[in-house]
């Protein structure tokens, strides 16, 4: 069986014929060449594959491409401005050394953006709790937490941060 799935990915309409068992992450990586979204586990726990579907963070390794049919998907490639200016969350990760090998980073950033969407002024505890679905083996989370807190500050006061 082949399905046609259509969706908006990073603002562009895309359509592909896929097997029903095609996961969203495979559609992104293999059919669309968007390799910024990573696969780090097979039990939906590491969070390297987190993308936004209709504005909410999901694990794209545990969603069929068919389930995202008609949705608006944002991946790490779609987060920065068109001119390459980093999103405040990306900038905060860079500024706070919130990444080392970079493999968990796309999922971590996408998850953190969703946190700040739902909770614009999170405490350190809330950041740590929210990020339980994202595993990082390099940073010990210390600088990731710092980065998310800094980004939340910036995102609350976009004008003042200029």
């Amino acid at each position, binding site marked *: 069986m082949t399905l046609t799935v259509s969706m908006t990915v990073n603002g562009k309409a895309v359509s592909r014929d896929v097997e029903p068992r095609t996961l969203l992450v495979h559609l992104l990586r293999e059919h669309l060449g968007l390799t910024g979204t990573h696969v780090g586990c097979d039990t939906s*726990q590491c969070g390297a594959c987190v993308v936004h579907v209709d504005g909410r963070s999901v694990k794209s390794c545990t969603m069929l491409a068919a389930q995202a049919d008609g949705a608006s998907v944002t991946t*790490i490639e779609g987060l920065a401005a068109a001119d390459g200016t980093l999103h405040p969350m990306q900038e905060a990760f860079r500024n706070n050394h919130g*990444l080392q090998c970079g493999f968990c980073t796309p999922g971590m950033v996408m998850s953190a953006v969703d946190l700040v969407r739902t909770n614009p002024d999170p405490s350190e*505890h809330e950041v740590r*709790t929210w990020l339980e679905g994202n595993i990082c083996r390099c*940073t*010990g989370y210390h600088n990731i*937490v710092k980065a998310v807190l800094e980004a939340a500050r910036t995102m609350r006061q976009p004008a003042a941060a200029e």
Partner: protein
Amino acid sequence: MTTDGIGAPLRRKEDYRFLTGRGNYTDDINRPGQAYAVFVRSPIAHGRIRSVDTADAAAVPGVLTVLTGADVAADGLGGLICGWMIHSKDGSAMKAGAHPVLAQDKVRYVGDHVALVVAETQAAARDAAELVAVGYDELPAVADTAGARGASSAVHDEIADNTCYQWELGDQAATDAAFAGAAHVTTLDLVNNRLIPNAIEPRAAIGDYDRGSDSFTLYTTSQNPHVHRLVLSAFVGIAPEHKLRVVAPDVGGGFGSKIFIYAEETACLWASKRVGRPVKWTADRSESFLADAHGRDHVTRAELAIGADGRFLALRAHTTANLGAYLSTFSSCVPTYLYAPLLSGQYKIPAIHAAVDGVYTTTAPVDAYRGAGRPEATYVVERLVEVAARELKMDPAELRRRNFVQPADYPYQTPVIMTYDCGDYEASLDKALDLADYAGFAARRADAAARGKRRGIGFSAYIEACGIAPSAAVGSLGAGVGLWESGSIRFTPTGTVVVHTGSHSHGQGHETTFAQLIASHLGVEPGNVEVVHGDTAQTPFGMGTYGSRSLAVGGSALVKAADKIVAKGRKIAAHLMEAAEADIAFADGKFTVAGTDKEKSIQEIAFAAYVPHNFPGDLEPGLEETAFYDPVNFTFPAGTQICEVEVDPDTGVVEIVNFVAVDDFGVVVNPMIVEGQVHGGIAQGVGQALCENAVYDTGSGQLVTGSYMDYRMPRADDLPSFKVGLTVTPNPSNPLGVKGCGEAGAIAAPAAVMNAVTDAIGQEIQMPATAERVWRALAAAPMAAE
């Protein structure tokens, strides 16, 4: 210090691509015409292969080939090797069981490689792999480290007692004599739990054979591509070295697990020639759990002899080290030369004796994992010292202080090989005590008790040996390789710089630190320095990255190359400015003539080097230099960690409420990156102490903790923010004065955490200190109310 020179927290050059999804990891690479490999793995721990029937698998649409151990034998493919020879105390060589790329006669652990399916799609390969019918005559599993030597079943038929070696280090007679005269002896039985490295990027490989040039390219997740190439060529026999290129692009963490030469990438290369197509394999996490080399797994009886004056007299340890089913690439040296030589810790201990039995079991191979031997040694020493202090009713900080090697003692020769060259252990201890507010601990403990919690504090004053060099030293200890490093610096005609290093970055930030280092030495902008690594076709032969060696050894090689650049530049400057070479000075990127206002920038010199219109005959064009650096000693980072925990006696849950690390890494190039390394190391050490445990069922040999559903990775909400600090004693043994920072956190933290937990609950338990273990300990012997 400038804003981007040595000592500056320069933001990383590599981050933009990682933050925007433009990294280039192995699985992101797709080669034209690529096919996909899936391995058929043993579902049992131990058995003889009676038959392998590939017919049904081969008939699945899209399957290109199904390869088995018979094909490996028919093609004469060599086995995987272990590159470090260990001799037993009786002088005999270690017993290394054969390690074929695909199993020949037996399978020896769950996950062992039996066959390889190559197909047009990954899904087809996986569907077909399920149809390969393998008949086994099952044999008993040998999954228990302590019981392996006496097991009735032999993992390798020719090694009846499952013993690879019985090795020793130190003077046993002197040690026993010291124990006989000791006023106090502290004894501990310690389990150093088995860990699974779990770099978040799973291993992956693309083997790509080009018939036109009869050459191979391997894209793979490697920490040391040149070593990969050497082994694949010289021992496995894939191709002559010059016909084999190994590319390790962006690599998503290694922690040791990507040092080793595994069956999977080897098989992909071999298969690519057999099918005439690039062959790609990407591990899923379940495979990583089964087949990545694991770490640690020691069982130790350790004893510390102490005089009436509180001074250490001797230490002895008997360790059984689980090597797994086969010897992985460097596995033999981890529980021997990377372990026992660190048993002196930061202390003057006149006599030390260590005996290590390396045993085979029907489990995944065990090899170097962040710290590799040194966390195990630190755990032995620092648990012994802490428990000794409790037994002697001494302040644990004071007992340590009384026994520290003192600054005046350097160079200090331990009884176990190492010559410590510098350090100031009291300085880091004092700073840690301050950061941890040690003086306020009693009040915090009382406050916790009032809240129904048990609070404990624990120390770990660690030392490690980094660099894993010099070559002469490691060679004398059995290493099959030299452990120097290479670097080259190439100026372009327009004055920008390309640096090639034989080390490899998989999270450590070399593209930034090395650029910072070279920019500082040559007086150029870091933004004009590009660091190239990870491709045997581009970089000089180098030994790769592990053992916290990249800056100390690889950075030193680059500085030597920079010195050569300056020397060459001086000749060119002398020519251009019509001065004697001896009168040319170089500083801040400018060559000047002493006593004049003449100067040429290094960029002008580079341009002239490539446009040498009037060079004299004895002056070579070009500005490019390569250097190889072989250190004169290991480096010895050291420091103190202090961990404070609160235990919930109702549930046994341990919470880390404060964690301090003060490290002496010598000169620090980029403190931001160094702190990040410390944080990550601490998290892995805390993981070992509280969370992680690779468990094999002792009856069946099945890996019980085979996914993140059962193997507990430390998460953000398991950890606090850390307090880190630095002290500096410049390393006299390399030109940069640096020591290495990659492993310290993981080396020291397990002892700090377990010292805190056992302080809180008043009794000994083994790692990991899970809630149930803590609860059981408290239930068995509840502490008196404080």
